[in-house]
């Protein structure tokens, strides 16, 4: 009995050789418990060792293996072949990013934006470790918890039509992380982050397509973070006009 197979149509691109990306088809064994990443590993180990992609944890938490699968941003370690049966399955690099090679995209832009939103606790005075933890009730934790679940997998940037047109846009994950710290009861950095998030390429670029929240594999709702940041930003703007000496929240 011949083993059932499924076809993967994979984007290949070698800088310096290819003027533009091309598509190569691979036939791989069809196994119901295989994910797209298993199929790529099969190709790399058994067919073409030069196929280039990132992966690591294969359990949906390291954020390495994001790709476009049939045009939708997915973690390939959680995208099962059976959900695309009988195929073919189109595997492309994440949209909206420069491609380094094959399925690997450049993350430099996000890494810079991540740092720009100051994603760390900002305090006017740091409490000495000897005085113990900051108390935080379960309700205070719940206020920001979902926004702390971002694994930086970049699926939301690949889905974001605004980022596609305006690469300077801070983007869903970076804004959600800024929002995560702003909501943290231990943090006092809102005043520092607010101008960064609210500037011309911050939250105001977003047109509320909401695709970011749809594709997030971790249930984070970046669209909500952006919308609520806009409301907060607008309130600050109104206060600054009404009370030019500096509105205090």
């Amino acid at each position, binding site marked *: 009995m011949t083993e059932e197979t499924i076809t993967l149509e994979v984007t290949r691109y*070698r*800088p*310096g050789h290819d003027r533009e990306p091309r598509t190569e088809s691979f036939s791989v064994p069809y196994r119901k*418990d295989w994910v797209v990443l298993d199929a790529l590993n099969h190709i*790399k*180990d*058994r067919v*073409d*060792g*030069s196929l*280039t*992609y*990132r*992966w*690591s*944890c*294969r*359990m*949906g*938490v*390291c*954020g*390495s293996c994001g790709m476009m699968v049939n045009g939708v941003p997915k973690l390939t370690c*959680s995208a099962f072949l059976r959900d695309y049966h009988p195929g073919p399955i189109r595997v492309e690099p994440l949209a909206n990013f420069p491609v*380094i*090679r*094959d399925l*690997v995209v450049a*993350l430099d832009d996000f*890494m810079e934006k*991540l*740092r720009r939103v*100051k*994603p*760390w*606790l900002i305090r006017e005075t*740091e*409490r000495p*470790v*000897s005085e*113990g*933890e*900051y*108390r*935080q*009730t*379960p309700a*205070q*934790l719940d206020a*920001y*918890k979902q926004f*702390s*679940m971002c*694994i*930086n997998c970049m699926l939301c940037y690949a889905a974001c039509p605004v980022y596609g047109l305006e690469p300077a846009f801070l983007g869903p994950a970076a804004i959600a*992380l800024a929002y995560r*710290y702003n909501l*943290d009861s*231990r*943090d006092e950095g809102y005043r520092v982050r607010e101008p960064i998030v609210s500037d011309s390429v911050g939250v105001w670029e977003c047109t509320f397509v909401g695709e970011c929240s749809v594709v997030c594999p971790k249930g984070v709702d970046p669209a909500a973070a952006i919308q609520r940041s806009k409301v907060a930003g607008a309130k600050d703007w109104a206060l600054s006009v009404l009370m030019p000496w500096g509105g205090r929240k």
Partner: protein
Amino acid sequence: MPGNDAYQHDVLVIGGGGAGLRAAIAAAEESGRLSIAVLSKVYPMRSHTVSAEGGTAAVMRENDSLDTHAKDTIFGSDFLADQDVVEAFVKEAPGQVIQLEHWGCPWSRDPDGRVSVRPFGGMTVNRTLYAADKTGFHMLHALFQTSLKYDSIVRYDEWFATSLLVEDGRVCGVAAVNVHDGTVSAITAKAIIICTGGGGRVFPFTTNAAIKTGDGMALAYRAGAPLKDMEFVQYHPTGLPGTGILITEASRGEGGHLKNKDGYRYLQDYGLGPATDKPVHRKMELGPRDILSRCHMQEYQKGRTFEGPYGHYVHLDLRHLGEKLIDKNLPFVRELAKNYVGIDPVYEPIPVRPVVHYMMGGVSTDITAKTPLEGLYAAGEAACVSINGANRLGSNSLTELLVFGARAGQSAARHALERPAVKSNPVAQLVSDERKRLDTRFLRADGRERIADIREELQKAMEEGCGIYRERATMEATCKTLRELRGRFARIGLSDREAVFNTELIAALELDSMLDVAEAVANSALLREESRGSHTRTDFPKRDDARFLKHTLAYRTPDGPRIDYLPVTITRWPPEERKY
């Protein structure tokens, strides 16, 4: 391969996971005058710390004491841990977890706002802090995001260190490939810290991520540093069949039950009873990992496990915990079980089996995280300091990477402050030699051996010889196979000759590391003729303190590992029989 000029720093950390980032921050806080670099083969937030689930042990409550944490750890280690190191570890643990709280880690909380603690295997009281069941993920991201605020920390993301540069017996830098463009450069530093984690990928069935190939252990080993206690490999009792994805011990800490195919809680037959409904510390499902993994194998031998497409398994039953508790404290377990085995643990038991999880061994360091090579430090799973001895207790490893990551950062920073800058001439020569080696050995080699074949045969040999139960004949066969594979590796051929993002070259370099690590494990195991902790010999079923109350040291030679020994430090807890 073209090359770049030498990049210069004071402290260079290899590895950007929990230990590496903690070390980098500690070095930055030690002195603002130091230039600190973090080099990692992946972006730091991809590091395998991200996959840790259950929690982080530290004495946090009035009903607990440092001595109890120390005793549990030493007992769990089957008395192979160095007791002075364990005492320092438990003492510094609370401060480190609070520091991480101050850096934003979203620890789960009690109603009064204090960080919560849960029970864990082999621990006498509740002392495991957690962030639901994504503790490692939250710790890693908190550390990474916090590291971004230090201007003195620069990063080399997606660089692979290929060798340590050693001049006059002193470690002074690394040669490293920038994966993005294929260039090989020297990065010099007065002190180097290895924080590259473990090497579980030398086994076919592991919880470890693809990147866990023991690269840092191999780097140090090749430069002459010994690897300590490598024979001790931890099997975690509850991994998903097929993928090996971890189902956290916290699921048992919360009250989950292990059942054989008759629905019977079999652990009570192995001296871990009585089988109470509520979890009791150190009993039943809260026994230590080495013992629980052996119980599974004995159930299998008695024909009382299930048989599935990926071998024998038992049931981890969480149904009685209820949906609310599962969603609050074990949401990731539910997500993983649903995604990868199609089981919702609220309604059905999860199939689980023992899976390679952690290496107790690693680069030998002293209590300050210093290795025997001048200028070289190590921390985290890559190191063996040793608090874990022959068996690590769950939730001690995340604490270990904080405590000894911080210690390594401080030690390296102080060393760097005292030392003159590294001379560049010898380094230029060393890196030029390394470029030639990589070119000849890999990029221009036209051998016929394939990476995947050698890797699979290595993994198979390791499972056969160095699994849960071991004996002389199969271990000897494994050692022999590994030697042969080392020979075949010299005839490897790559299909990818590109400079830009050559992942096949990286896979070859990783396989090189795996061969070194695997040989150290197998040869260390062969010579330890006793059973202790995770190292269980059917031909030597008893612990033998007279001959083996000592650490193994493996040194690399061209003909394979040379094995030596080092005494264990005993302070206040003389060895006794380990019974739960």
